[in-house]
């Protein structure tokens, strides 16, 4: 493993998916962060999600 590949060497910049409080804590520590507006895919319907995933794989 090369040292430059270490995940510990990169500056921390975060995409936050879920609890906004975690993004706020990072922001207040001056860490670049993007809060996603995450919602359950396909209205949360497991059958539709599986279908979407299959379509994506085929594509």
């Amino acid at each position, binding site marked *: *493993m090369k*040292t430059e*590949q*270490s*995940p*510990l060497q*990169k*500056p*921390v*910049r*975060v*995409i*936050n*998916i*879920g*609890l*906004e*409080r*975690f*993004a*706020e*804590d*990072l*922001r207040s*520590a001056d*860490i*670049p*962060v*993007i*809060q*996603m*507006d*995450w*919602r*359950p*895919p396909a*209205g*949360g*319907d*497991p059958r539709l*999600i599986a279908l979407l*995933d299959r379509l994506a794989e085929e594509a």
Partner: protein
Amino acid sequence: MACSTHILKSSYYDSVVLMRVASQLKKQDEVAEVAMFMGTEGNHALLAQVGLTTEKSREAGPQDLIIIVIADSDECAGRTTQEAIRMLSERAPGQNAELDYRPRMLDTALKFLPDASLAALSIPGEFAVREATACLDKGLNVFLFSDNVGIEAEITLKNKAREKNLLCMGPDCGTAYINGVGLGFANVIKSGRIGCIAASGTGLQAVVCELERLREGVSHAIGVGGRDLSREVNGTMTRYALELLEQDPVTEVIVLLSKPPHADVVAALESICSAMSTPVVTCFQGARLPGSTFVQAATLDEAAAMAACLANGSDYQPRSFADPNRVFDLLERMGDTAAGKRVVGLFTGGTLAKEAQLLLVKELGSVATSLDEEIAHIVVDLGDDQYTIGRPHPMIAPETRTEKLVELAQNGNLASCGVVLVDLVLGNGSHLDPAAELIESIDTLRTKHGLYPEIIAVIVGTEMDPQDTEGQIIALERAGITVFRSNSEAARYVAMLVAPACRTHYMKERA
């Protein structure tokens, strides 16, 4: 009783937010129950299980929010429902305008933050694997706070991460620090030369706080999730984390925290660690391994102290208490008032509960770990799944503990209790004033139930945490609560209160 059901169409809210609002509204005397759930299949089953399903609630789909209120009157139920809607619509105070743009798609988020290094996921477990997979595919390290992720999915995610030289911290990872940046429930600490690998969030918090008190800092703390050292997961992330910290130029000592690992995993870890130049201090709760590959600590604070000694080249001196004179004075003042009585431990941190239970078992014999067991002493992790179904985690909402304490008092289960042992875990993500909530619950015990058990609290926090740790301690002590900064010290002190025979053993260090 009046019951009101309200459906907010196409309104997705995170379950933690919903449970916090519900929990606050339930504090009103005239409100018996507030249930707020998204209308997913799982939540419909949960509502049915607790007998709260209504004709109207069945109409809600996965994107709709169900608000059910049971109160003394229709007027109160309606008012509480409106208050819930108002609270949900309020933006959190201090929310930064820069956070206002919220992409829905990962690709869009990456256009706004093209050099993103990590994705932090705290969404329901049933959807988390799909999103975590997408993040790894985009080359992002993953901090997976979500629980309820199957072990097969965990193995797949971690193998994928490993193939790509990425971290998959979790599932069920509460805390991590990368390059000094805290993720999840993280205490505010200084950077330093101790690297950590942790299968336990609150265990890691206890260690980093102790390191901070010993004037040491953390280089990185890699969370791996509670199952990483199981036979199935085979320590995939722990092994990778050891490699990374061994190569890290800043890390001088490594602390590894976990439940006892599977024997096959131990062999693999020993093989890796014996070839490393960085010393590894382990704390495998309740297990001491043969051999000398690891420097083995029995408790979390001992792991921190051993690591600090290795870093600064000093000898480690085992001790039961940092300030034995203070403990001696406390015992003198207490006398034998709690001797022979029950211990009731109500913890928000699972690893802290386990550590206290292991220490108390040594002195008291049996100690139950569930409120359902009929053993005199109990030490319970209120963050365990059995107590958090449809409830917020008590580190976020300590009122959960208040309710449990009051329930125990009402059922007569605190009548022979001499000591109540609790933890307050501070830091980012946690409740902002857990001391106030605890003091209120103790007041209720005293004034409404005439119960005066000795209250012992352990505070896990640093002076830089947002809760004002010193202020929390002062408030607790003013309310007659004895405060310790170390979990093991609190447990030993409790043992000495109810079993005075062990005082000689623990107090022999007093000069």
